[in-house]
């Protein structure tokens, strides 16, 4: 797939929404052991995998064999465990930030600028973020650690 990118250096005209700011703010933070363990527990139980096979670095699709419906199970289980909301809309918005659809994914695939943003948002999945990635494939980047960071962001947002 070929694509052309023309804008990579625009600066935000306004502050990103709070949820986005929080997601980005925690992207580089260490995951505390208690949250990490709890998220691993929930995901292991939700996917029916042995607890020992679920690590923060595990990719849900490639390492843990999840499919899109399993991903929903995980989202609902985490929402119940932590009393938070993790919507697809919020995740996509967090990925896109203040970029317009055209800036983020012109002609379907995510732009270079969008890929760079995703690498900042999902540092644990940098090597999976390659040209040609489609927006709907973003969940395929998610590791257990991604979910731990989302949980941390949502908990921070709630306080």
């Amino acid at each position, binding site marked *: 797939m070929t694509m052309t990118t023309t804008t990579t250096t625009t600066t935000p005209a306004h502050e990103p929404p709070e949820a986005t700011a929080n997601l980005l703010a925690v992207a580089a933070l260490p995951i505390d052991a208690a949250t990490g363990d709890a998220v691993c527990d929930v995901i292991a139980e939700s996917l029916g995998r042995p607890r020992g096979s679920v690590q923060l670095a595990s990719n849900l699709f490639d390492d843990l*064999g999840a*499919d899109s419906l399993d991903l929903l199970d995980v*989202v609902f289980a985490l929402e119940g465990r932590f009393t938070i*909301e993790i*919507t*697809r*809309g919020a995740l996509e918005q967090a990925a896109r930030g203040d970029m317009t659809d055209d800036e983020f994914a012109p002609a379907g695939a995510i732009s270079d600028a969008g890929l760079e943003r995703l690498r900042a948002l999902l540092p644990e999945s940098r090597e999976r973020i390659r040209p040609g990635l489609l927006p709907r494939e973003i969940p395929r980047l998610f590791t257990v650690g991604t979910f731990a960071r989302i949980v941390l962001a949502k908990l921070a947002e709630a306080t």
Partner: protein
Amino acid sequence: MTRPMTPATTPALTTALTTALTTAMTPEAMLEHLRTRRSVREFTTAPVGRDVLERLIAAAITAPSASNRQPWRFVIVTRAAVRAAIANAVRAATEAIDGAVRTGAHAAEWGSYGDFFWQPLASAAAIIVPAVREPPDPLAGFLRSAGADPARFQLPSAMKPERCALGGAVMALQLQAHAEGLGSAWMAGPMVACAELEAACGIAPPWHMAGAIAVGHPAGPATAPSRKPPDDVTTWMEDG
């Protein structure tokens, strides 16, 4: 033992060829038949004959069941008015669920998923509604007759053997449909209109509807289902 060759295209030769092909079913051919079955959800308007539908049921009842209870019944609906009533009832019940989900935070994830519940029924030439009965548990009866509390024991009924048996029966039905060149899909979605469908099909306790099977001539190629690799779903315990 061998009959003299007859000219091509005679019924006798056709029968002989069919017999030869059937008896020549290899392990590889069997696996290929299993692997090429698809859940088909969109059908042409071509009808499916009663003789074919009878073969599907003949296949279904070959399935094993605990103590050979054969705890299944099948309501086969080809009558257009009843098929439409079934599809419409499932659609209406799905729309009620749609309405509820749309007010929540996960409306985007739900999307049009509910369409899967009724759309295959809308174009199916035949709708087969399986029913299942939970039979009395004779082992519990034996224990009670001896003054023992069945709750103190681990009993086979825990695995819901009647449901497992129905699963085998429907798989056999679907494989026969595949061999007939038909497509089929066994769906849990129609359970959203369980009460309406049981009434329409004359299913009453102790029988309970167990989803619905859409059957018909495929409208086009179905997507190949992905499967978890064998290593992901097996644990081997071997010598050596």
